[in-house]
């Protein structure tokens, strides 16, 4: 270059010196270049203005289509825990496998004809090629059917549905299955995140916890009663994603994520497990149709256990049958029979119709009231109040009841919570029946005093005994752990204490329920064996009930056991329900470290440091 320049300069030099310092100026060329360049500039600027100012939406849209995504973050349904924080119901993510049949039909032929029609010839090579695969030759579909556990014929039927764009193949599938299905790489098959509810304790709590449906909505029990609280809200956000799918920008929150609340119950799972297994054993041993048991902490109204049989495993929906699902302890009422006798004694004491030391003559073991007969099983002769309860004398309590006005007895029953809701707040609770009317025949009043003509649930019975045990204070029952509610004195304290003392005889020798005894503790309780009413009178089926308190000196727990329709020779509550009470009460007292009051324990003392 340099050489060239130096050689050309001498030539050009003289020329320019001769004419002008600058090269010739052509105004035509200058104008042409100037106009061309400015035209290009105007074109570019106007295009820019068009894109940026006049119509920016189009490109913005196109960009957004490629980068804006809505992501959702799933809020799982809250857990349910027992009083010690052990989970009783847990939600885990599960997947629904669904199919777009149209998409499948695009890639697979279901008939030979269709398959042959799908042949296209490659114009270059002249080779024939099927655009669709023959459905029944593919090995992937049988693999899918197998892993999802659906019959091949049914799968084929679903896929061939005309005009269908969506069908669930299987719901509540776990992650490994989804990964397997994804690896099959079948077109038209996709998965969708949902939630699976799992109950680690199975049938033990099935009746009280209830169930959720496939869309994670509570449909029974606590799951239904507290659905709004347990349910979370899935959050949705609009985000910008880059080419690799990484989120690079948070744009906006479309739906606030609401975390689900965890629910803590007052149930103690250790006691609940014992209660359920003992109840189940008793129901099976006595060929009974059903049974319920409730354990209540007297001084707070908290339910420590509430079990029913029959139950079912909520993790296996094939077992689902409505009758197994019922929480019988709160829904099923029965005539409480002799278990109301202590309440009658309490009523007579409240209205000063008797005193603690009174002796009542029950001989000759029967009495006629308005042409109907009330009888005891034996002629017990003269008895004091405690012995009347110990022997469960119908005559004894009838005589007490007849001294009372019907309204007075009814008021006492109502004070003990019969015919009223217990405050537990669960769906399906029954309040039982406490008929209110003004005219009562003597016989009706007498039968009411030994528990006929009124109905109650197992829970109400446990609550009534709880009121006796707490010195006449009634606490609203609760199954959800929360602040302790204030109690209300409904029965005079001294009367409640006296009746509890009288009930201690029941488990002693000669009482109706020696099998209710708990080693090391004194208990107070009462049996009840009532005939079941059926159309036209009372039939041959019985309800065996035992309700009781322990320890008798300082009552802490109230337990009511109900066994419905025990079959066989021994249908008396003392043989059927009392052993369940004894076992469950023993475990309850041991697990909650209640000091024995039996009086003959081996004691040792340890000096605290």
């Amino acid at each position, binding site marked *: 270059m340099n050489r060239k320049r130096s050689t050309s300069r001498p030539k050009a030099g003289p020329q320019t010196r001769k004419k002008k310092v600058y090269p010739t100026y052509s105004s035509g060329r200058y104008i042409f270049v100037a106009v061309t360049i400015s035209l290009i500039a105007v074109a570019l600027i106007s295009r820019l203005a068009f894109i940026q100012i006049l119509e920016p939406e189009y490109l913005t849209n196109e960009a957004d289509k490629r980068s804006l995504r809505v992501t959702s*973050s799933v809020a799982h349904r809250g857990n349910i825990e027992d009083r010690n924080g052990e989970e009783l119901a*847990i939600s*885990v993510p599960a997947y629904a496998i669904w199919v777009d049949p149209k998409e499948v039909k695009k890639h697979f032929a279901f008939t030979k004809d269709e398959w042959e029609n799908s042949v296209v010839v490659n114009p270059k090579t002249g080779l024939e090629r099927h655009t669709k695969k023959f459905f029944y030759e593919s090995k992937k579909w049988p693999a899918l059917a197998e892993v999802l556990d659906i019959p091949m014929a049914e799968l084929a039927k679903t896929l061939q549905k005309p005009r269908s764009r969506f069908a669930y193949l299987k719901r509540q599938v776990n992650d490994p299955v989804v990964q397997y299905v994804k690896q099959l790489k079948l077109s038209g098959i996709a998965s969708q995140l949902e939630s699976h509810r*799992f109950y680690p304790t199975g049938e033990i709590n099935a009746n009280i916890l209830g169930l959720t449906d496939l869309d994670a909505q509570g449909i029974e029990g606590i799951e239904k009663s507290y659905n709004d609280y347990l349910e979370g809200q899935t959050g949705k956000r609009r985000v910008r994603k880059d080419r690799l799918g990484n989120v690079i920008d948070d744009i906006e929150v479309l739906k606030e994520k609401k975390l689900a609340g965890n629910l803590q119950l007052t149930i103690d799972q250790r006691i609940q497990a014992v209660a359920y297994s003992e109840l189940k054993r008793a129901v099976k041993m006595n060929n009974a149709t059903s049974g319920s048991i409730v354990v209540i902490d007297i001084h707070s109204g908290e339910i420590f256990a509430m079990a029913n049989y029959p139950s079912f495993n909520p993790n296996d929906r094939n077992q689902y049958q409505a009758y197994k699902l019922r929480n019988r302890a709160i829904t099923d009422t029965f005539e409480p029979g002799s278990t109301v006798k202590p309440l009658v004694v309490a009523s007579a004491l409240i209205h000063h119709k008797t005193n603690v030391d009174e002796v009542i003559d029950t001989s000759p073991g029967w009495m006629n009231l308005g042409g109907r007969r009330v009888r005891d099983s034996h002629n017990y002769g003269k008895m004091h109040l405690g012995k009347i309860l110990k022997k469960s004398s119908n005559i004894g309590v009838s005589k007490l009841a007849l001294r009372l006005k019907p309204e007075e007895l009814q008021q006492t029953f109502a004070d003990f919570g019969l015919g009223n809701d217990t405050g537990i707040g669960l769906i399906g609770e029954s309040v039982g029946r406490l008929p209110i009317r003004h005219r009562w025949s003597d016989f009706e009043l007498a039968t009411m005093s030994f528990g006929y003509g009124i109905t109650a649930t197992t829970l109400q019975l446990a609550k009534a005994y709880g009121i006796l045990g707490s010195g006449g204070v009634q606490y609203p029952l609760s199954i959800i752990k929360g602040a302790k509610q204030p109690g209300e004195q409904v029965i005079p304290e001294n009367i409640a204490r006296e009746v509890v003392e009288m009930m201690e005889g029941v488990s002693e020798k000669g009482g109706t329920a020696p099998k209710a005894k708990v080693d090391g503790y004194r208990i107070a309780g009462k049996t009840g064996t009532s005939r079941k009413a059926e159309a036209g009178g009372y039939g041959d089926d019985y309800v065996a009930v035992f309700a009781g308190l322990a320890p008798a000196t300082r009552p802490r727990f109230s337990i009511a056991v109900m066994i419905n329709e025990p079959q066989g020779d021994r249908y008396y509550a003392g043989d059927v329900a009392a052993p369940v009470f004894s076992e469950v009460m023993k475990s309850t007292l041991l697990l909650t470290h209640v000091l024995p009051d039996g009086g003959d324990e081996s004691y*040792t003392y340890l000096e605290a440091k």
Partner: protein
Amino acid sequence: MVASRDNLLLIILADLRHNVILVILGIMILISALYNIYVTHETRELVTKKEYLSQQKDNLMIEWRNLLIEEHTLDEHSRIRSVAGDQLSMAQPTKKNSVLVEIR
């Protein structure tokens, strides 16, 4: 003088020297623009990282829930009772073989 008047580069430089403030402002705009790009990039990386971490948190949560189920299936009370009773020959102490200890 003629040669220097001929040199375009020098002319441009001379012109720039007259408008030195504009030049500095221009350069500052350029730096600010580049820094803006850098910060945006940095932000995006952080957002991605946060997203990844929250995803990881979700996954751990799911794993935890599954482990919880496993734990509670294994420590179910009736199972423990039957294992203790049948396999380990354990029994609940009775009044005869237990001593009450009171700490004073």
